[in-house]
């Protein structure tokens, strides 16, 4: 009888410890596994349109500025071809640095296909990139139509 009481007590204790442990965790959201294809962009210039329309601030026309902004820690985004939505990159192939991440700096303006997890929060889409499936390099030759934007990003 005594041994049964001890077992029940142990069970209760484990339950309390487990519950408290869960409460101590941040409230993780359920993400959605996706495969996306699109250009890695400078999100600030794209959203604010401070230098012109969104088309002007993608591709080769805006390549140097996109590198500047990624180096400065502005969120890098993937502009998904299928839905034309911007996905803010929060981690990249296991690297949780999303501010001035070296890999992201070197991929600005590239068209990538990635596998990852998308989280939706208060109107924005965030992306953890698990794997780069393919890198097509820079294929959006916007300089042919728009020149270099901004002008100071030319040699």
């Amino acid at each position: 009888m005594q041994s049964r009481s001890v077992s029940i007590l142990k069970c209760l204790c484990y339950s309390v410890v487990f519950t408290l442990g869960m409460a101590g965790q941040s409230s993780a959201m359920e993400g959605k596994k996706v495969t996306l294809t699109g250009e890695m962009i400078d999100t600030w210039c794209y959203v604010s349109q401070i230098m012109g329309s969104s088309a002007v601030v993608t591709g080769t026309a805006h390549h140097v500025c996109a590198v500047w902004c990624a180096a400065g820690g502005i969120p890098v985004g993937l502009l998904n071809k299928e839905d034309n939505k911007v996905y803010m990159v929060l981690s990249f192939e296991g690297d949780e640095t999303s501010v001035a991440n070296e890999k992201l700096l070197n991929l600005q303006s590239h068209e990538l296909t990635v596998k990852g997890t998308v989280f939706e929060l208060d109107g924005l889409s965030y992306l953890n990139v698990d794997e780069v499936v393919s890198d097509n390099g820079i294929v959006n030759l916007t300089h042919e139509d728009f020149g270099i934007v901004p002008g100071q990003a030319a040699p």
Partner: protein
Amino acid sequence: MSITTFGDICMKHLESPTRSRSTLLSEMPGRVKAVTILPLLLLVAACASPPGEIDAWPITGAQESEFSGTVVDLLCELNGNCTDNCGEGNRQLGVKTDSLGTVLVAKNLTDFSGAADELWNYCGQVVDVNGLFTTHQGVRFFQVQNVRPPEGKWLKATRYSEAWVARSGKDAGMARNWHEHDERVKAIIKRDGYLGLGQQADDEYFE
């Protein structure tokens, strides 16, 4: 006084401190609006208001806003992957509010730089922030212009420059145009060219 240059507009504006700074852009003649964005950004810097006040930026539809909330690490909020101090400037941050939800803070007041250095020192604390919201295709970004820490005074969101000098080891005089002196950026341009397509493409296009 006739307005013909950016400097005139700036001076006229500064001489009328009671008028809203958002009127600055609307006062510009058409030919002034047509010039490149850089002089305008320099004008914004030259006309920078005292800490706590919001400056106008040349962003169509931008909305001034001031609110309070908790500084949060977005990766921590989303998937429970947290660090002790919001990544100490290495992670994208937001301000979690009751009324606006979690606001991604994407930009600060320094050219071409983000907001992590402006906020990570207040990780987990409730701060007041003000600045501009800009929205495009349903995506809403916030540019923080001033931060007021708990029981503190308003601070301009320009810490990035100081942090860049500390990280890069460069002279403080380079901070204003940090992007032109940043070794990471210089290495990428040297390797890939200004178009990102290689030196030959640059030579053909810029000749």
